C-alpha cells in the first residue's frame, strides 16, 4: 500500500489511506519524526480499521506553503481533509504533535469524533513559567535528546551513515518543520487548555513509562482538562511507544476503540 497525493486548500498532502471496506475509519496523526506506512503499528491497525494517515505539511513529501506556520493551521487543514474524504464520527489517534493537532481539531468540531487516543501529546502549558513543560530538545546535545525520547536510545537511534540521502533529507526537513511549528510559544498553544472541555468524545491518554519529554504529571493534567479521559502507561517505551512497543501500543488503541 502506497501513499497518494491529495490537494487540500493549497497544500499538496501525502496521504496513506487503506480505504478498507466499511470498517470505521481511524485518522492517524503522526509525531515530529514523521510517518511511513512501514512503521510497525500501521499493519495491525489497518487489519481492523480503515487507516487514514496524512503526512503533515513540511514533513515527508507534503508541501509547505509560506503562510502555514502553526499547529492550528494544520488542524484547520485536516478538518477540510475530513470534508473531502467525507469522514465523520471517526476515531482519532495522535502522537506527540499529532496529539496536539488532534486536540485542536476536536475542540473546533467535537461532534465529528467518536473516540480519541492521545499518545505523548504536547500542546498545553500547565507548569510554572520558570520551567519548560516540554524539555528543549533543540538546545541540548543530540544524544541527550535521544535519551529523553526513547526508552532504549541505542536500539532506536538511526545511523546517518546507513540512511539514504532521501531519508536524511526527510529527517532534516521534519526537524525544520517541527521547529517552525513549535518554537514560540514552545510546544504549546496558550489558549488550547481553555478549550479542551469542549471535547465530548471519550479519550485515552497514553504515555511511555520512560518518556522524558511528556511527564506523567503533564499527561495527567492534560487528561483532567477533558470531561471524559483516562490515562495509561506503556512499559519499556519512551516518547514514541508506537515504534518502541508497537504491539502494546496497537493493543491499547484497539482495546480502547472497542475492537
Amino acid at each position, binding site marked *: 500500500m502506497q501513499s497518494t497525493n491529495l490537494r487540500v486548500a493549497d497544500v499538496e498532502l501525502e496521504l496513506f489511506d487503506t480505504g478498507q471496506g466499511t470498517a470505521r475509519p481511524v485518522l492517524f496523526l503522526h509525531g515530529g519524526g514523521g510517518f511511513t506506512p512501514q512503521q510497525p503499528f500501521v499493519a495491525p491497525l489497518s487489519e481492523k480499521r480503515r487507516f487514514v494517515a496524512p503526512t503533515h505539511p513540511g514533513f515527508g513529501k507534503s508541501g509547505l506553503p*509560506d*503562510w502555514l*506556520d502553526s499547529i492550528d493551521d494544520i488542524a484547520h487543514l485536516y478538518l477540510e481533509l475530513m470534508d473531502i474524504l467525507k469522514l465523520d464520527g471517526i476515531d482519532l489517534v495522535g502522537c506527540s504533535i499529532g496529539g496536539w493537532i488532534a486536540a485542536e481539531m476536536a475542540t473546533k468540531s467535537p461532534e465529528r469524533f467518536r473516540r480519541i487516543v492521545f499518545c505523548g501529546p504536547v500542546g498545553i502549558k500547565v507548569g510554572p513559567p520558570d520551567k519548560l513543560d516540554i524539555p528543549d530538545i*533543540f*538546545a*541540548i*546535545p*543530540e544524544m541527550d535528546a535521544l535519551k529523553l525520547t526513547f526508552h532504549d536510545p541505542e536500539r532506536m537511534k538511526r545511523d*546517518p551513515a546507513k540512511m539514504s*540521502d532521501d531519508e*536524511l*533529507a526527510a529527517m*532534516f*526537513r521534519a*526537524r*525544520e*518543520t*517541527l*521547529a*517552525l511549528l513549535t*518554537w*514560540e510559544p514552545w510546544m504549546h498553544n496558550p489558549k488550547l487548555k481553555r478549550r479542551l472541555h469542549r471535547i465530548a468524545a471519550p479519550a485515552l491518554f497514553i504515555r511511555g513509562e520512560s518518556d522524558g519529554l511528556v511527564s506523567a504529571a503533564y499527561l495527567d493534567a492534560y487528561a483532567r482538562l477533558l470531561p471524559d479521559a483516562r490515562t495509561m502507561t506503556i512499559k519499556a517505551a519512551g516518547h514514541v511507544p508506537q515504534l518502541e512497543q508497537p504491539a502494546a501500543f496497537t493493543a491499547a488503541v484497539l482495546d480502547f476503540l472497542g475492537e
Partner: protein
Amino acid sequence: MRAWHFSETAYPYLPPADSYPSIRVSLPNRIYDPAKGAALYDRYIDEWLIAEEEGVEIMLNEHHQTATCVDPGAPLMLAALARLSKTARLLILGNPIANRRQPVRVAEEMAMVDVLSHGRLEAGFVRGVPYEILPANSNPVRMNERHWEALDLIVKCWTHHDGPFSHEGRFFHHRSINIWPRPIQQPHPPIWVSTTSTGGAAQVGAHGYIQATFLTGFDTTKRIYEGYRRGWREAGRGQDVPIDRLAYAALIYVGETEARARAGAEKLLWYITANKVPPHFSNPPGYVPVAMNVQLARGAHNVVSAFGTKQVTVEGAIEAGTMFAGTPDQVFAQIKKHWDYVGGYGHLLIMGQAGFLEHDETVHGIRMFAREVYPRLKELYPDTTISGVQPAAQAAAG
C-alpha cells in the same frame, strides 16, 4: 579602498575551555566581572578612537549571551561612539533584524544615531549567526524572509516623510508609522548586508546594498562576489559593479618586525580557537537548507559555524585567506593576492583585536596598518575601480 577597525569587545578572562561546553549561549554570566568589563569597554572605545585618529573608520557588531562579543546592544555602543568620535564613518554590522521584533524601533535607533553623529552612520543588517537564535528566542525557520521584510520596512520608515503610514506584512504589523527623528543622510544612510551564500549575495546585489562577507577566504568569497554581481546586473543596475559595493572581513595584524607581527597574529587567532560552540547551538533546525544538512551529515565542512581546522595556525589562516599578518610588505602582498583572486573589494573590515591582544599591541597593529599598508591600498584600489575585472584588463582600461 576604505579600512575599518572592527572590535568585538571580547571578554577574555575565562576559566579553562574544558570546564565549559560552550563559550556562547549557556556560559554563566557569574564568570563576567562587571568591573573588569567596564575597564574593557573604556579600552576598546579608546582603540576605536585611535583608529579614527589614524584615518581608519569605525565598525562594531552585536552578539548576545557570549564572552566573544559583549555588545548585546550595538546601537548603544554606536550612540556612545557617535558622541566620542568626530570624523570617522560609523558602521554597525549589524542589526540582527530577523531576530528583532520591531523593525520600526530599529529604524528609529539608526535614524537617531545618524543625527547624533551628524550623518556618519553606515547601517548594516545581518541575518545573525546561528547561536543568536536561542538568545533571541527567534524561530530559525524563514529568517531570510523576515530579514527582507524588516529591511524593506526600515527603508520605508527612513524615506517616508508625510505622516503615518501602515504596514501589514507577513511577519510585521504596524498601524501608524511616523518615525522621529528621520536620518540626516538622504535618501537614507548607506546600507550594508552580510551573507555567506551566493543566492543571498544576488539578493543584496539586486538592491545595490553593500555586501560584506566574513572570513570566507578565497573560493567562497569569490563565489559570493560573483553572486552579488549577477544579482546587480540582473536587476538592471548596469554592467559595472564598483568595488565600494563589496567588503571583506579578515583577521589582520601588521607588525614592525616579523616577530612582532607573528606574536600579534597568534593572539588574534583567539577569534577562532576560543569559539567553542556545540552543534546544537551552531546548527539549529532550519538555519541552513535541508540539502546542506544532508551534506553536513555526510561530512561536509560547515562554513557558517566552523572556520576549518587548518586555520587554527597563523600559516593555515593566511593560506586560507582568513588572516593577513606580517610586516607591511607581507600584509600588502597577502591582501593584493586575495583581492585579485576574489575580484576586488572596496572595504577591508579589520578584525584587529581579539582575546588577549593587549592595548599596546592592538594600537601597534592599527598604526602599522594605517601608516604603512593603508596608503598603498588606497592608491592601488581607488573607489572607482570596477570589481570582477581582471587586473590586466583594469590596467589596460586605466
